[in-house]
């Protein structure tokens, strides 16, 4: 019987080999035919044939095992496909639900994405700092350094293993775990440490409690304006200080670009996935694209071409989607509301592609962009500013309150936010200010200074005003909860955490509380940052000693030498670690799978973990596929952005 099974396996192996050989030869012939079309010489054609024939096995494998499944997954992402049931085409429904946090699936995806960003934005810098600190320590020339290196690297080999993760579970046990016991002993011995330890618990719980409130989608009220206003204030403050320079122009331009990209993503998610599509988003998207094309026109020809092509593809895609989902007759008047902006955007971008960049052409396209902006304002602004919405600006500028019914829970939970303008307007104003400053540059210094100062005062007042009003808003919720004698309705864990300073008995509940589950995971990740350490160590070895010696002669301190020599010289290694760390953080899976409990499952769940659960446990293949493509888009965008902006801080010797 065993020999029969072996024969069966050999038979299949033979067929597989034949298939690979035949398909490789066919591939070689195809390549040769193409070479013939391009009129390559006979010798070149032969080279092409043999080259592709021998590369054939890999290419065939790639097509069958990578490209094929990827295309199938892309198709499934537009379907309602549950295992064992009929596949139904539902267009962008999966994407809309996930991106707009609709229903349970959308809510959980939103939570998981915010968890993933937490790991990426807090975990990666901490992991890199730990790796760099270890590398600097291990770069010392002391006896037995190789043994230390081995010890520090060992967690990388062990970290992913379930046994080690379970050991961490024991070490992080809230009661009797090694970490808490050690901390308690130190706190009992040194009173300063005791105070710092309790302060650490207080701050961590307050921060995580607030973050969980955001994850749950608790209304932020006035605080939703604080973030855009604060970001704009910081950027403008940096621009206002000292003399104007090229670096500042780049900062203004980069700031506008990054915020603009973030808004565009939001607009695309909100606008394109809505059915039927709001024509205002088409005008807005076209305006943003045209502005980007014009801003790039004189600086980067290659990038401008990418934007032009991407915009035209978007126009065609949106037209297809609009017609696919439209609940209007093509011949009816409704159709023109969609077709006109699409045609206008297509025509403007087409015009930008024609001929050379001349002053009249640029001026005409800026005028068209302005027109698009006016159309967007005309269609969206009345809805945004009616019913006294504009008054929030005047209220915040004078530190007044916008809350009208402090004791009404329904008002606080639902009505209040509906009265306010979207935070996108503040992000938009920030982009406009920064773009204005970048364009005015050295050409109109007075106007530039006026814009910087005016915008700085405006955004600083909005930051302070919205922060103050946010405080009142949170207080109102707390008062309602107290009066009702019920659990907190709003940022419950945050209120709980800041209610009183921790007493001596308090310990971090690492694996048992939502407040501590994410920090626990980051702690474990930091422990296993040996790979990053090795890369830093290699980079540190490559920094010429002469540079340090020269700096020492010039009187540079150790800190100055670190920031002025070490960091710039190891920046390529830093860049590599950031990119790889960010991708790994967004794909966190194994540790969550092992460490989660019923109470911490949601607070730990990453996008990759949710994707797994939805696809393989709940068998929702279509939605799982959509999640994976969103994750791909996010990882790809972040990686491209990192590469794009690395030029300003990564220094290569060449």
């Amino acid at each position: 019987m065993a020999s029969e099974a072996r024969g069966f396996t050999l038979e299949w192996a033979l067929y597989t080999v034949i298939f690979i050989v035949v398909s490789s030869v066919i591939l070689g012939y195809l390549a040769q035919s193409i070479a013939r079309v391009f009129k390559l010489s006979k010798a070149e054609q032969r080279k092409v044939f043999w080259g592709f024939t021998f590369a054939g096995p890999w290419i065939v494998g790639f097509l069958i095992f990578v490209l094929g499944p990827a295309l199938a997954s892309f198709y499934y992402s537009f379907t309602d496909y549950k295992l064992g049931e009929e596949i139904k085409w539902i267009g962008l429904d999966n994407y809309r639900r996930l991106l707009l946090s609709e229903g349970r699936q959308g809510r959980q995806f939103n939570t998981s994405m915010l968890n993933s960003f937490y790991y990426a934005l807090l975990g990666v810098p901490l992991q890199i700092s730990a790796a760099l600190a270890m590398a600097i320590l291990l770069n010392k020339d002391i006896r037995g350094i190789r043994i230390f290196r081995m010890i520090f690297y060992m967690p990388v080999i062990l970290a992913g293993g379930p046994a080690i993760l379970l050991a961490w579970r024991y070490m992080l046990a809230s009661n009797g775990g090694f970490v808490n016991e050690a901390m308690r002993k130190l706190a009992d011995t040194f009173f300063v440490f005791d105070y710092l330890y309790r302060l650490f618990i207080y701050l961590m719980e307050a921060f995580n409690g607030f973050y969980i409130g955001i994850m749950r989608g608790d209304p932020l009220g006035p605080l939703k304006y604080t973030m855009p206003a604060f970001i704009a204030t910081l950027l403008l403050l940096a621009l206002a200080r000292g003399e104007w320079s090229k670096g500042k122009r780049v900062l203004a331009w980069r700031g506008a670009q990054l915020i603009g990209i973030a808004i565009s993503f939001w607009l695309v998610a909100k606008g394109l996935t809505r059915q039927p599509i709001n024509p205002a988003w088409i005008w807005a998207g076209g305006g943003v694209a045209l502005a980007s094309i014009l801003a790039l026109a004189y600086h980067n020809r290659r990038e401008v071409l990418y934007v032009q092509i991407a915009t035209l593809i978007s126009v065609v895609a949106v037209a297809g989607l609009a017609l696919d989902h439209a609940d209007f007759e093509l011949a009816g008047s409704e159709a023109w509301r969609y077709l006109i902006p699409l045609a206008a955007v297509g025509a403007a971008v087409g015009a930008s592609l024609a001929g050379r960049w001349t002053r009249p052409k640029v001026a005409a396209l800026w005028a068209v962009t302005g027109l698009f902006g006016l159309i967007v304002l005309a269609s969206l602004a009345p809805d945004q500013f009616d019913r006294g919405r504009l008054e929030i600006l005047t209220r915040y500028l004078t530190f007044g309150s916008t809350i009208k019914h402090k004791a009404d829970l329904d008002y606080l939970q639902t009505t209040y936010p509906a009265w306010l303008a979207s935070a996108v307007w503040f992000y938009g104003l920030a982009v406009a200010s920064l773009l204005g400053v970048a364009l005015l540059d050295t050409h109109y210094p007075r106007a530039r200074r006026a814009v910087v100062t005016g915008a700085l005062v405006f955004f600083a007042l909005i930051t302070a005003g919205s922060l103050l009003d946010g405080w009142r808003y949170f207080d109102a919720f707390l008062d309602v909860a107290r009066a009702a004698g019920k659990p907190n309705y709003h940022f419950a864990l945050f209120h709980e955490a800041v209610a009183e300073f921790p007493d001596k008995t308090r310990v971090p509940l690492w694996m048992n509380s939502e407040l501590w589950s994410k920090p626990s995971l980051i702690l474990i990740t930091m422990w296993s940052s040996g790979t990053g350490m090795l890369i830093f160590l290699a980079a540190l070895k490559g920094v010429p000693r002469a540079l340090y010696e020269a700096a020492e002669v010039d009187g540079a301190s150790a800190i100055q030498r670190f920031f002025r020599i070490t960091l710039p010289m190891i920046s390529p290694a830093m860049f590599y670690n950031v990119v790889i760390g960010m991708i790994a953080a967004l794909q966190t899976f194994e540790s969550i799978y092992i460490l989660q409990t019923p109470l911490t499952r949601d607070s730990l769940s990453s996008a990759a973990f949710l994707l797994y659960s939805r696809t393989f446990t709940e068998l929702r293949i279509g939605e799982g596929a959509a999640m994976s493509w969103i994750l791909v888009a996010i990882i790809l965008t972040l990686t491209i952005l990192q590469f794009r902006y690395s030029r300003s801080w990564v220094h290569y010797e060449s």
Partner: protein
Amino acid sequence: MKRVLIFALVLVMSILAVVPSAAPSPAEARQDKVLEIYITGLTEDTMAWFNDVAFPAFEADHPGVTCEILTGGWGDFDVTVAGWITTSEGPDIIYLGSEYAATYGDLLMDLDSYFAEWADWEQYLPAAVDTVTYDGHIRGLPLLMSPRPIFYRSDLMVGEAPLTFADALEFAKANTIIEDNAAKQWAFMDIGNDLFDAQEFIAYIWSAGGELYNEDGTSAFDSPEVAEAMQYMYDRRRIMRPTEDTAGLPPIEGTALESGMVISGIFPMWAVPATSDPIWDNVAIEPYPAGENGAPLIQVFIDWLSVPAYAQDPELAVEFLKFIGSQDNAIALKDVAGFTPTRQDAWEQIKATDPVWSKLLDVTVEYGRAFSDIRASAELRPLIFEQMTLYLTDQQSLEDTQQMLKEEYDYILEENGYLD
């Protein structure tokens, strides 16, 4: 060189084309049949029993058939089974957990006709038969059961084992010790080594007299019985963890029952000491407490062998199920692997030789309710985790939690075709 290569290819393909097809006749197919059986979490002894005892016996009765066992862990169970079901390519028999009948539904074969004349069905616990039934049709054979009662350390506990929610709260107060904001002793622990689990929540809904579904098939999460079960779980939590920053018990080495820090708990038999351990002289086995209008119960989990719809030879697969489910093999599996048989005529020897198992089987017969007919269970579990976490940690009121559970579960039921 190129011509030589092409010539060689043409030659090989011509030979393959000329060679007569090796497709076997149906009789020959059975002769060469390899029956693949997937079972999760087997010990080495159990694997050895299957390979050395059970398979040779079955193969002797079915000449030409070879049995092969595939095994894996619960960790990759969902992915593995989903892969087979998606591709319709996999083992002929698949081992499934208690709630999977509704998950895979019609993707599993209807075996009514194959089992129609099988007299042994009468020996199986009705709860076990319910577990393997979906849409009124039998989808497999119950292989083993895992009753999960509450075990009490009678030598350590203060008071009697409670049979009502009110008494259970008093019991929790009397048997819990909290010092310096950390637990020293807990009156109760659930299967997840903490104070909340989705399966346990469902058990308390049942013991409160409630159900998961209304008569029209919609979710009954808005019922007063569900509210009573939730309130009980919340109150019990607040006794054992007065605030959410109270630290739980220190890590337990060995089983919780032996630790002396846990007075009672819901555990499967593989998470308690061996029944020969003297500790059992001081352990009481009791059902879950009940609500005002409910009755105490014990949750019973049934693991079973299913035949997927893609199976090429269901007749042979069912023959194997009947073989492995025979009285002799049920007893043998209990001896080798510690499986609790689901057929009652296999219990005599167990009851005669093991007083702990005897007591366990008695209370299971009296109070047992199978963990089955949990519709869209894979989606219900995360929903319960999400909403109950909010409620138990003071982030959401009881009413809001009930409303969310009801609305979301109705949506899930509708999406999965359980509601019109």
